[in-house]
């Protein structure tokens, strides 16, 4: 705590921080063994960097986001759990793979989607960024359950939601609203 920048300490004191290590602990508690990712500026430092060196997680770097859904499907048939870590632009890019793997095949595609540019303490639907505003409605149309992970108070929802995704064989999306620290 003492080594953190003043603004992070202040935000933490006010309960308005999203701690990357807490998110990663929740992922690991869910039995996830593989993280499939295209780097996202929003989560690069707070999530992807520590995941890279976490011995309990295997990071598979892909060139485009639709690959992550194909790989996650293969892992699932082989009885391994995966988390897809991408930016909202990559989510939009991968729409056909999501339609096929997550919606039609009803596979437990667990997505963590960085809302790059979402303003702190502003709901996604109220963001000034068009790309951020449309993500929740698209997930709703696809019938994919979604959780906004905007600060540490939201993190406890992650592990049960992943467990449910696997037990019910259905997709789930976690929208990373605040840049994790």
């Amino acid at each position: 705590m003492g080594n953190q920048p003043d603004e992070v300490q202040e935000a933490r004191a006010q309960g308005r921080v999203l701690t990357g290590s807490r998110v990663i602990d929740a992922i690991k508690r869910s039995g996830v063994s593989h993280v499939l990712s295209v780097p996202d500026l929003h989560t690069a430092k707070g999530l992807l960097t520590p995941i890279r060196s976490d011995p309990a997680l295997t990071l598979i770097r892909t060139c485009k986001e639709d690959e992550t859904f194909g790989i996650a499907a293969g892992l699932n048939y082989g009885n391994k759990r995966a988390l897809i870590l991408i930016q909202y632009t990559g989510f939009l890019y991968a729409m056909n793979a999501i339609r096929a793997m997550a919606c039609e095949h009803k596979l437990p595609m667990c997505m963590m989607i960085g809302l790059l540019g979402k303003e702190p303490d502003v709901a996604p639907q109220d963001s000034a960024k068009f790309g951020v505003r449309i993500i929740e409605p698209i997930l709703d149309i696809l019938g994919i359950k979604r959780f906004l992970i905007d600060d540490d108070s939201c993190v406890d929802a992650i592990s049960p939601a992943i467990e449910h995704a696997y037990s019910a064989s259905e997709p789930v999306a976690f929208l990373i609203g605040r840049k994790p620290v």
Partner: protein
Amino acid sequence: MMNRKIALERLKTLINDEIVVATYSTASDWIEIFDRPLNFFSFGAMGLASSHGLGLALARPERKVLVLDGDGSLLMNLGTLVTISAAAPKNLIHMVWKNGSYEANGGHPVPHQQVDFAAMARAAGIASVYRANDPESFESAVRQALSVDGPTFIEVEIEEGPLGPRSYKEMYKASRRQRLREALNA
């Protein structure tokens, strides 16, 4: 160049408990030749057969995984060669069946029919790369790929068609995928 079905008949004699991931035209011929629980048919998101194969290979490192990709399909997901090279699963054999055609999409040509996929795979960092254009070179390439640590890549030059009768509904039904899951997790 060779007929795809002749090559697939040869492939049937070379495999045992490997997982086979097939897609589109090659899948419809393969199911006719060798319908088995350890088949996975990739559909609905064209281009992702090799990604499915990579996931299966990572999940089940004790089994070889053979991906029967198409050239049109691979062109939709060329980055997969780099991803596979970096992930480096020893048990993945990625074949591209090259006939220069989006055969399953009406037989229109791919944008460029002389693409050198073997060179692309090598350039992506895949060390074991083979070419086949007749049944003998195909059998030799598959035998080598099965005997070495991967990832390996085989470019298979084939003739276009003929397309036999096919039922995508039958091929892609959920019970087939469940059968694979049960076979893998028994």
